[in-house]
């Protein structure tokens, strides 16, 4: 893909900086954090200082004041080296911050976004529950209207940053029953569980946030991949949320998160694209250095054709992802293209990382090379923020309309 198709000189400067940062600062520590499932506070603090945790938000709200493509480039370049750092940026920005920017009142933006956009604290999004994933109609967390406040009870699972983060957008049912109506989004705050680490690096905790009593982080998930990213349960036990912290309008939670997820898919597509590229880079490098039977293994058709397929599919993934991002940046409809990019790139990441391990042979199965980590990191791309099956459902509905609605 020619750079001039989507990028300005400034985009290229952003890409260069993030690429340089990822290779120099993240690559050497990625394996260790993966092994220990430890949140990378030190590099996250540096990412905050460089503006990577608020790329598309206005400078007056603490962001970098850049555009959506710059943000997608950031997610993409981070993932070429480490998916955990990339999802930290993506979940914080798209899931943790964009709902407030898109649906919040001016007061809510002023109150919460500066902490998030400057990376002073991490944000997250609480939608999924044990009985409600893609079928958000199953949301069982209840919010009872008490006049000037709501009282929330229930539990969320698989919430990125539930432990390390402090500001969350969460959904709860304000009208009893089942179904998509009657779901409302709230802004809640709870202190980070890593107070010591946050204090040591100087980011991650803001003492002056309006803490929501009764909100707490639960069990940390022991995951196959994205291990340096923090994923936990988020519990509400008679949590008192002031009415001012209803995000936008009561009852609009379902519509809001559908929109948030539409855009979120472009971020996940960029992450998966980065993973695929990172694995391809490793495979190409290894195949050009490893000799068997007196020649470089890249010289064997079995390997060179695998690399040719990877390169071709990555090119397709780039065009899908950046086209979807371009549509969003220009305010055009992008539901179909975002789902297509996410579906294609997540499956691309899986195929490519598996092939990259194969190209490395026995070495690829060891932790001496990053491709085994990349292969583990790839799987969740087909699951998180809507499984591949859900993407196909979204795409089918977009292209067939009423026919599939039955």
């Amino acid at each position, binding site marked *: 893909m020619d750079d001039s198709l989507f990028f300005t000189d400034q985009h290229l400067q952003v890409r260069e900086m993030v690429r340089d*940062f990822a290779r120099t600062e993240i690559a050497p520590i990625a394996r260790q954090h993966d092994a220990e499932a430890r949140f990378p506070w030190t590099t996250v603090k540096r990412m905050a200082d460089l503006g990577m945790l608020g790329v598309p938000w206005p400078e007056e709200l603490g962001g970098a004041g850049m555009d959506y493509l710059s943000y997608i480039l950031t997610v993409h370049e981070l993932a070429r080296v480490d998916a955990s750092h990339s999802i930290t940026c993506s979940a914080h920005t798209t899931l943790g911050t964009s709902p407030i920017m898109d649906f919040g009142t001016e007061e809510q933006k002023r109150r919460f976004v500066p902490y998030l956009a400057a990376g002073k604290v991490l944000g997250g999004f609480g939608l999924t529950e044990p009985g409600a994933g893609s079928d958000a109609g199953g949301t069982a967390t209840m919010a009872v209207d008490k006049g000037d406040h709501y009282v929330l009870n229930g539990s969320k699972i698989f919430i990125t940053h539930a432990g390390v983060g402090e500001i969350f957008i969460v959904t709860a049912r304000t009208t009893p029953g089942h179904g998509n109506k009657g779901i409302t989004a709230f802004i809640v705050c709870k202190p980070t569980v890593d107070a010591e680490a946050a204090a040591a690096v100087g980011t991650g905790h803001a003492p002056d946030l309006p803490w929501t009593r009764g909100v707490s982080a639960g069990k940390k998930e022991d995951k196959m991949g994205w291990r340096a990213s923090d994923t936990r349960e988020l519990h509400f036990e008679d949590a008192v949320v002031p009415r001012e912290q209803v995000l936008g309008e009561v009852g609009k939670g379902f519509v809001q998160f559908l929109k948030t997820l539409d855009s979120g898919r472009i971020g996940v597509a960029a992450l998966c694209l980065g993973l695929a590229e990172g694995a391809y880079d490793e495979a190409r490098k290894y195949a050009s250095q490893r000799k068997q039977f007196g020649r470089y293994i890249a010289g064997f058709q079995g390997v060179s054709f695998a690399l040719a397929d990877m390169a071709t599919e990555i090119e397709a993934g780039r065009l899908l992802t950046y086209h979807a991002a371009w549509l969003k940046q220009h305010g055009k409809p992008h539901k179909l293209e975002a789902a297509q990019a996410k579906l294609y790139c997540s499956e691309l990441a899986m195929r490519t990382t598996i092939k990259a391990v194969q190209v490395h042979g026995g070495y690829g199965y060891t932790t001496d090379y990053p491709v085994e980590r990349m292969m583990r990191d790839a799987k969740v791309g087909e699951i998180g923020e809507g499984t591949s099956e859900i993407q196909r459902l979204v795409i089918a509905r977009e292209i067939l309309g009423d026919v599939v609605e039955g």
Partner: protein
Amino acid sequence: MKIAVCIKRVPDTETRVKIAADGASLDESGVKFIMSPYDEYAVEEALQRRDKAGGGEVVAVALGPDAAQETLRAALAMGADRGVLLKAERIPADALAVAKALAAELKDGGYDLVLFGKMAVDDYHHAVGPMVAELLGLPCVTAVSKLELEGGKGVAEREIEGGVEVVEFALPAVLTAEKGLNTPRYPALKGIMAAKKKPLEVKPPALGEVRVVAAALALPPERKAGRILGEGPDVVPELVRLLRTEAKVL
């Protein structure tokens, strides 16, 4: 404090070098260009000195083709205040010709400090900085690895063979930066945004007469494959003999 920092656009150090059809220059197709890494130390030092002094100006100066504006923008994104491109289709191989153009630009600038990288990683001249110092009649300290400035005077450390040399000098001065002088910053996204709005002046260079030209470029001979003589103490005498007579390193 007013500081000039002279930077050069060079091919990325990971470039696989191909020689152009003229046999005397680099084939630039597909080559990525960067700021010469030693110049990054110079830029970082300039920014830190300006900020420590509580104000002043850092002016980034480059001589090179139009594309060197990117290199200057990178310095502006790191925090330099403005850029000057002395636009030349090609950077002459004659270091003195380049030094004259830079000296002419810097002469009346009222700079307290003029910084360079200790060398450009493409031509390895190590020459332009000291030549500019000579042309401006300023003291020059090369390959500075540690720097202290106070009250119009400076103390610099230079790593020399087997030790460290400490030198004192008066300001204004010309210094060239060694690796390790500092840790160059990444340009923050806000810096990249701000760089767009910073002034970047493009003007013709007052190049000196070019008396040195690159006549030819050649790639180094390919490294020959190594040889394994065997294992264990028995092969040591043979290894020593070959190191003496064939490799001639003993």
